[in-house]
């Protein structure tokens, strides 16, 4: 019962803030609502017993990436963009197509739910020392992708510095 209350609370919060991110006129308000959406997702991770991902989500997403976003918003003046049209000319077509794609995906899951019944989630004991298992999997089986990810971060760092340099 408590599980359901927590899940539906965080799910509602995440969806509402996601809608506000997309519809707000002011970019700073959008960024704040994106932080709310990310924190609500972190709550859902905690409810799924993914404690390590919860911490990573709070520190990296809500802490790191969002600070980067807010910092860039501060560098760029807002006054001109507030008075311009916020949606592009083909917005109705885009909205229609996006809703069709979303309805299709949701319909697929709804049909699959009734045809092959989803089993109940595994008991919490299966992933008991969750962080320990994640660490063993990450540094055992997925060692090579882990190292490749470090190269990706290096490339991204160099790319960001080169892009934001005064004179290219």
């Amino acid at each position, binding site marked *: 019962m408590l*599980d*359901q209350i927590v*899940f539906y609370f965080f799910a509602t919060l995440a*969806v509402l803030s*996601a809608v506000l*991110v*997309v519809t707000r006129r002011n*970019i700073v308000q*959008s960024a704040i609502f*994106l932080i709310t*959406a990310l924190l609500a*997702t972190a709550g*859902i991770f905690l409810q*799924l*017993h*993914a404690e*390590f991902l919860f911490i*990573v989500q709070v520190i990296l997403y809500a802490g*790191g*990436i969002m600070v*980067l*976003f807010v910092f*860039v*918003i501060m560098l*760029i003046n807002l006054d*001109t*963009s507030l008075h*311009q*049209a916020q*949606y*592009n000319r083909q*917005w109705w077509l885009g909205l229609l197509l*996006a809703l069709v794609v*979303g309805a299709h*995906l*949701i319909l697929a*899951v709804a049909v699959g*739910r009734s045809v092959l019944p*989803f*089993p*109940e*989630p*595994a008991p919490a004991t*299966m*992933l008991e020392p*969750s962080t320990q298992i994640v660490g*063993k*999997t*990450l540094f055992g089986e*997925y060692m090579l*992708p882990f190292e490749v*990810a470090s190269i*990706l*971060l290096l490339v*991204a*760092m160099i*790319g*960001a510095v080169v*892009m*934001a340099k005064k004179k290219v």
Partner: protein
Amino acid sequence: MIPTADYLFLSLVMFTIGIIGVVTRRNVIIILMSIELMLNAVNINLVAFSRLVGSAEGHVFAIFIITDAAAEAAVGLGIIISFFRNRETLLGDEMDLLKW
């Protein structure tokens, strides 16, 4: 207990909202934020399935996706700063040249 399908529905709704943001908005920063929303929705999916199967591989892939999101945000915001410095605008439909 909550059925896994409910997590999938939540993830799909957030993903669709992200698609709507990318397709309809003109502001490039909001487009980048919508992409973050979509990546986040994918993470919910992965963790829910990881819970269902009882293995940690979904968590590992979610960590890789967060790494990608950080790299993408850094490069994307660098491009936006460079674009704003040259064009003095934030509108995505003004981005129609590779070099000027």
